[in-house]
């Protein structure tokens, strides 16, 4: 696959602000029809990464290309093909939704008829579609809906969403999910950065975790979703923990002041033997249970294992 055939191509991207190194050699390749979820703790560099992809910031080192265009060129050709929702809704507060949309449609070369068809089909019946007041009178959730409405205008080829579902009600959330799926059917590439892991799980086909400036791609997301696992909670000392890890090869980690041993469902045959070993070592078994692990738990486990 050549660089130009990838919608988003990032190679060895570095960025620092003063002494703080935010991105430390990030690599990413996304093809069309991909919905990529970007997760990470506060301050991990997700917004910086999106701003770099949009050319709002310049990398210290490395390169990136969006639809074959270097974002640092600030090419209007790139922005006309990109839907963007950033930290702020970015609507002009004295203008109504429709006036704002007219402006962005003209900026993006979306025709008047295309704008009206899009608005009538997806937004006319929503509360922002019926409200002709200036955007400054809207609630936070309504403003976010406006931003989403603008981002999907003309159904561009690539999307960048930074916390797109914050403050959305259930109906608006559903609308967002529907529009993401519509965009995907139109071969778009979508990058969603969010702390709402349920949204990431529902929509994304692949996920990356940004931590300490490095992007770790979670392969085979389907396997991460809703998988089952055995959890053994026990009280034991550090020596026992080491022995268990050496003997079983399974990760153990400290959580809620209890040692917790997690075993994948497909290795459940070792559970009785392990419990017996632990008891013989004098450990007090608190709980042995089969959990259905959510995506949220998977991500939590990722961080716990890192600790």
């Amino acid at each position, binding site marked *: 696959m050549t660089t130009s055939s990838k919608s988003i191509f990032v190679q060895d991207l570095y960025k620092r602000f003063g002494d703080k190194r935010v991105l430390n050699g990030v690599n990413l390749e996304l093809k069309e029809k991909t919905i990529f979820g970007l997760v990470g703790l506060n301050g991990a560099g997700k917004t910086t990464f999106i701003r770099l992809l949009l050319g*709002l910031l310049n990398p210290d080192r490395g390169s990136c290309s969006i639809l074959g265009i270097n974002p640092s060129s600030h090419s209007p050709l790139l922005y*006309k093909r990109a839907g963007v929702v950033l*930290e*702020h809704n*970015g609507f*002009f507060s004295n203008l109504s939704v429709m006036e704002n949309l007219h402006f962005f449609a*003209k*900026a*993006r*070369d979306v025709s008047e008829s295309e704008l009206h068809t899009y608005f009538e089909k997806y937004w006319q019946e929503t509360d922002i579609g019926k409200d002709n007041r200036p955007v400054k009178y809207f609630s936070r959730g309504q403003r976010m809906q406006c931003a989403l409405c603008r981002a999907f205008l003309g159904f561009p080829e690539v999307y960048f969403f930074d916390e797109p579902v914050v403050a959305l009600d259930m109906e608006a959330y559903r609308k967002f999910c529907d529009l993401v799926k519509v965009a995907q059917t139109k071969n778009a590439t979508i990058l969603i950065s969010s702390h709402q892991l349920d949204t990431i799980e529902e929509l994304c086909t692949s996920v990356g975790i940004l931590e300490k400036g490095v992007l770790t791609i979670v392969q085979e997301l389907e396997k991460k979703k809703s998988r089952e696992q055995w959890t053994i909670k026990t009280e034991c000392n550090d020596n026992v923990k080491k022995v268990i890890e050496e003997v079983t090869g399974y990760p153990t980690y400290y959580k809620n002041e209890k040692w917790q041993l997690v075993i994948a469902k497909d290795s459940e045959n070792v559970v009785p033997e392990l419990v017996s070993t632990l008891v013989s070592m004098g450990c007090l078994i608190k709980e042995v249970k089969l959990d259905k692990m959510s995506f949220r738990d998977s991500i939590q486990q990722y961080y716990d294992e890192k600790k």
Partner: protein
Amino acid sequence: MKQILLIISKEWVGFIKSDKWIFLIYGILICAWGFLISNNMHSLSSKTGALWLAFFSVIISGNFSNTAFVAERMSGALEILLTSGLSRKSIVLGKIFFIVIMSTIMGTLCYFIALGVRTAKGDSFQVLIRLIPLWKIILLYASACFLNATCGAWLSVRVKSPRLLPFVNLMVLGIIVVSHELLSYKIGLSLWSLSMVMTFVGLIFYLFALRDFNSERVLQPLVY
């Protein structure tokens, strides 16, 4: 050109849909300044009157710069505007043109109010208009507006604290006018040359603004 016109029309719609009291404030300002200038519109101090009008641009253009550049940066609208599909050059130029056009209209109104006041006091309109030709006054005022608009555009990106913007605008205009006046005592410069100097300095600020709008400075956090 199409993109510049799009920015100007966006700024215009945003302005006419502002809160009503803003128009009242502009009205009061224009009248008050018009009365002030009218006191300096006789044969001995006609130049002072023209310079008073030039300083009116600091208030008007400064306020428009605040709305067009600083407020949009603060609300995050500028970030979206930069990714909207318009070139950065047309965004900066469109906003500067809008500020210059609106400020010039208001300054012209202000000058006509001053003329009206003098005429009402019994002065001849024909004589007043011959003291300094109208086009010279408008050119002087428009060049002062251009200077303030470009300086505002640059400072809105350059300084972290935009509340300093009107003060810096005032300082820049003050330095230029005072330097010009000092020189004119020596070599007899006219208002025409002052307009040229302000336009030239404005062009330099425009280039600075364009450079900074193309850098990541445009996203630096604001301290208000």
